[in-house]
């Protein structure tokens, strides 16, 4: 009798305890970029409430950082073994995080997921998350470098039709030279400190049928004719641009555009609000990134992917959140840039941007930057080559040959020491 009683007690205990285990709540730490817009913060809160309705046992804790702190904070946390469970990362950090072993491949989750399908996302964004054959992130939002913003008054003043913006490289240069006097210029180039200039030169190279690295990301192809021609064209644009471009950032050039100093300006689609805010009177429009006479207009992708960390204790819960946050309905509401989900992007662009078709077309064909864990080093070599070219310190061929040699050394160093 006593034995039975004891057995019963133990059984009861087991049932109770496991019951507790079933209902145990998990808490996910999610890091995102800080948003300035009140509307967007509200949308995020609403979306989160919806998620918690769907999964009452998953708590989500958001931590947000402004862009300039974000990378440092994330890397320090990850290197110290204490990263969040889920975060967004810039496309160009994705391979680095993967190679460092911070984040986990998501192929198995995607294979079983009824909701996350490759074809729902811009292909350039999806492929930016693939490192050595495995998928390490789900695209969250995107942007494309670059579109051609132009001031219609500049066209009218020199007798050009503002409804016929330049399509080819030659047209862009010729129209730009007509706008160039001592006080005003066709466009404003920039070399800056961030990655914007690489996005522009890459886009010129892509449009000319070239690439920065070969298909396997093992050899640099900057010394090949498509890249050489592209940089020669970039150099030519110096003639229709105000002096000082090597010390200029994209923001400085943006100011020259909104101050009415230059007629055309290459920037991403997210710059529209800034143009309207800084130059509300300006009669501006948007056109595709110019293409070579025999080429296609191809931009460079930017954007953010959602990743799950190796250290995450609740990987399944983390995946549920990623799945939810990148779904069409939610992605459209909680993203400040263009959503990476194609359907969500269409709705977003139609609602929030002028010239949505042009932007969409540019996004659909855009390519990602080289996938290499030491991309920041590679980008710095590219920037130096571009600067040497613009400053006439080296010829285009010479600068790109040197850059190719340096990048090849970097690639060899990385692949042989691993």
């Amino acid at each position: 009798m006593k034995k039975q009683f004891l057995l019963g007690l133990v059984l009861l205990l087991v049932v109770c305890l496991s019951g507790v285990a079933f209902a145990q709540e998990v808490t996910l730490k999610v890091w995102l970029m800080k948003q300035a817009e009140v509307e967007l913060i509200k949308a995020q809160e609403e979306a989160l409430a919806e998620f918690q309705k769907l999964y009452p046992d998953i708590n989500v804790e958001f931590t947000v950082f402004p862009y300039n702190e974000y990378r440092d904070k994330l890397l320090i946390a990850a290197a110290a073994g204490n990263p969040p469970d889920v975060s967004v990362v810039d496309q160009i950090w994705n391979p680095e995080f993967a190679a460092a072993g911070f984040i986990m491949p998501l192929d198995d989750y995607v294979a079983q997921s009824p909701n996350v399908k490759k074809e729902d996302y811009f292909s350039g964004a999806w492929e930016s998350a693939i490192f050595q054959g495995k998928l390490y992130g789900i695209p969250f939002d995107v942007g494309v470098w670059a579109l051609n913003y132009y001031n219609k008054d500049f066209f009218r003043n020199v007798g050009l039709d503002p409804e016929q913006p330049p399509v080819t490289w030659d047209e862009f240069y010729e129209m730009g030279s007509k706008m160039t006097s001592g006080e005003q210029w066709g466009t404003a180039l920039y070399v800056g400190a961030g990655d914007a200039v690489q996005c522009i030169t890459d886009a010129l190279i892509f449009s000319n049928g070239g690439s920065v690295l070969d298909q396997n990301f093992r050899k640099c192809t900057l010394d090949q004719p498509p890249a050489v021609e592209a940089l020669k064209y970039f150099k030519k644009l110096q003639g229709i641009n105000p002096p000082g471009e090597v010390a200029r950032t994209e923001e400085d050039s943006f100011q020259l555009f909104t101050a009415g100093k230059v007629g055309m300006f290459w920037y991403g689609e997210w710059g529209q609000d800034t143009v309207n805010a800084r130059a509300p009177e300006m009669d501006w429009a948007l056109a595709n990134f110019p293409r070579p006479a025999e080429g296609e207009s191809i931009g460079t992708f930017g954007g953010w992917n959602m990743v799950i960390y190796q250290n995450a204790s609740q990987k399944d819960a983390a995946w549920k959140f990623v799945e939810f946050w990148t779904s069409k309905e939610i992605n459209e509401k909680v993203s400040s840039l263009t959503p990476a989900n194609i359907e969500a992007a269409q709705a977003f662009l139609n609602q929030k941007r002028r010239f949505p078709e042009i932007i969409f077309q540019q996004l659909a064909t855009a390519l990602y930057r080289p996938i290499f864990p030491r991309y920041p080093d590679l980008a710095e070599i590219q920037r130096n080559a571009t600067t040497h070219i613009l400053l006439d310190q080296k010829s285009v061929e010479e600068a790109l040959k040197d850059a190719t040699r340096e990048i090849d050394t970097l690639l060899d160093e990385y692949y042989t020491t691993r």
Partner: protein
Amino acid sequence: MLHNKKEWISGYFFILPSLILLIVLVFYPLFMTFIYSFYDMSLVSTRYLGWEAYQKLFQNPMFSLIFKNSLTWTILVVFFQCLLGLGSALVLKQTFIGNTFLRGLVILPWVMPGVIAGMAWRLIYHPQLGLLNHYLQVLGIVDQPLTWLSSPTMALYAVILAAIWKGFPFSTIMYLAGLQGVPLELYEAAEIDGANETSKFFHVTLPSMRPVIIVTLLLTFIWTFNYFELVYVMTGGGPAESSHIFPTYIYDLAFKRFRFGDASRFAVVDFLFLLIFSLFYVRLSFKSEESA
């Protein structure tokens, strides 16, 4: 005796908190930087190189450039800050109407955050919208705007000018205080001996201010050598890495490119250089003090 020992122990307890802070925040990172400097280190791989690492460093053309830039930058900035500081201190020592107002005004560049000063100077140098080019053109000194910050030969000097402006008030204040400390009797004695203003300055003012000048020079040298914001905000080390100095290049290596090993090596050289310089300088100045 026992009582004494107790006191001795409790004394250590009192300094323990600051000792721990020093170890955690200063000595440990310093030590680790030395260790890292022997490695080729990034987020994705770590490889031990040993002394070969330093061989690589000294062969790196960037190293000699950075060293040259840092010396040019520091010597010019410190020299002109000293000159300007001494000059302005002599002016402000005089009594005239508006003296206190001017003293307040002079300190403005020094209290301004470096980042803001850097951004203001960027605008001043702006080739299209900048004040400097505007006035140079109005006065007919140049007919084309000069691109100060985008020329590899001019960029560093343009920042040096801004840095002299930014930091000289510190020297002014130090020297002003030093001037107040010169005993008036010395001037009176010099006057009786028939000294004019120039010889009073060289034979009374300067020697009396020696200790202040020595300390100020040492401080400004170390600060300037390790001054980060102005160069970083104004040129970012560009164009084409031509205006980098030690702190900006170390930052770029470590936090933009995640080459911790390379960054540590530069940091170690930076540290050792300043250490040796300071020891040498302090010894030298004490020695000459004794002989004086």
